[in-house]
């Protein structure tokens, strides 16, 4: 059988995959085949592929766990007409819990509650766990050994982020960081 051009294999695999494909996975496509693209060749082909789709309604993008095609935002109003459901809306309580975990991870439920000033119900935690956005990464070494929650790679993927660094910071956080920094500096100077 004739070998397909590298770029065509990547195109088909990325459209067929249900999850983003890492460079590692893309290499695996060619295991035991005469083609043995290096990482450089793969990246170069991916970049040409992205160019081919520059004027189309799907874009090739890189997220935390690899590459995937996604439909451009401009299509949302059209797609909204297709389905009655409005998927992916979350309550403020859920969003605040996710924000705590996202910005302060790893964090216990008690810590989330102390900032929110109200109890965080199990259904909220479970909803986020089932959505694949948070997971337990350990247990805090205090009485009761409460679970420590953190965000997952899928959270990054679903929010189109390569890493947590790309998350925008709220004003308060910026202020706190600079205050902490100043306080730290002052302390150091005092020593």
């Amino acid at each position, binding site marked *: 059988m004739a070998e397909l051009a590298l770029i065509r294999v990547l195109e*088909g695999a990325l*459209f*067929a*995959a*249900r999850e983003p494909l890492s460079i590692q996975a893309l290499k695996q496509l060619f295991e035991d085949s005469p083609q043995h693209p290096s990482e450089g060749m793969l990246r170069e082909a991916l970049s040409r592929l992205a160019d081919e789709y520059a004027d189309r309604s*799907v874009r090739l993008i890189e997220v935390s766990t690899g590459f*995937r*095609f*996604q*439909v*451009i*935002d401009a299509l*949302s109003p059209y*797609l909204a007409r297709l389905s009655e459901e*409005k*998927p*992916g*809306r*979350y309550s*403020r*309580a859920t*969003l*605040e819990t*996710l*924000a*705590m975990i*996202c*910005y302060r991870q790893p964090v216990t439920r008690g810590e989330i509650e102390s*900032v*929110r*000033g*109200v*109890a965080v119900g*199990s259904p909220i935690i479970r909803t986020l766990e089932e959505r694949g956005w948070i997971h337990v990464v350990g247990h805090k070494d205090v009485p009761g050994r409460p679970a420590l929650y953190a965000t997952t790679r899928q959270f990054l*993927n*679903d*929010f*189109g*982020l390569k890493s947590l660094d790309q*998350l*925008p*910071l*709220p*004003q*308060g*956080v910026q202020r*706190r960081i600079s205050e902490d920094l100043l306080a730290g500096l002052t302390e150091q100077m005092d020593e």
Partner: protein
Amino acid sequence: MKQPVQGELPLAIVAGEVLTTLPEDLYIPPDALEVILDAFEGPLDLLLYLIRRQNLDIRQINVAEITHQYMAYIAMLEAMRFELAAEYLLMAAMLAEIKSRVLLPRPPDVDAEEEDPRAALIRQLLAYEELKQSAELLDSIPRVERDWVVAQALAPELDLLRPPPTVELAELVVAFSDLLARAQLSAAHQVHFETLSTRERMSQILDHLQTRAELALHELFQVHEGRAGVVVAFLAVLELVREGLISLVQAAPGQLIYVTRGAQHG
């Protein structure tokens, strides 16, 4: 949205003062109260709202004033007999405490070690406000499902499919126990547990009724299953009737009994 408020009866007692009218700036139509209570995520959220409404900086808040407003709000909710979460009352107590300490002259040096409660409250409010902002920021990031979709094309048939996950019987039992523990259903009096063979038979009877609109009752009893099988079938029929999933129909006494889908109407 101002409405005349009856001034005769005391509406509530706030900080020792009888409140006959709601503070002007606080008046909210009673039927809107429930909605508003739902709109707040908790006492911190409510306090933030009260502070922000006056364009105040959290760091500059007048505890006495904000306490007054918060208490008036809580009193109003209580007067309307809304079930208030304990957190709201706890905050009321905390505010009252802070207010009294701010008003009373403090003996010098006594509290040097202890944190100023006003500072603690301000810190809590700032942290919560920051969280609110973070949540809004997070929600503004375009995300899968709501804002965009992954582009996919149907994959060709593969000879080598990833083997599906395997499940051990024990895992299933554990999952069910966890569920029961969580739902606190384990007490036998809260949920009835028919034997599983009965539930299995219930499914089978419903499945039969998928293809046929009605069955003669006797068709559900198989002689070769013996006495035990007939009992199971009988119990399954009774349970299905009780849950309104099937009905038994008999045209006249002595005639054949038929089983049909759904509850009997009328």
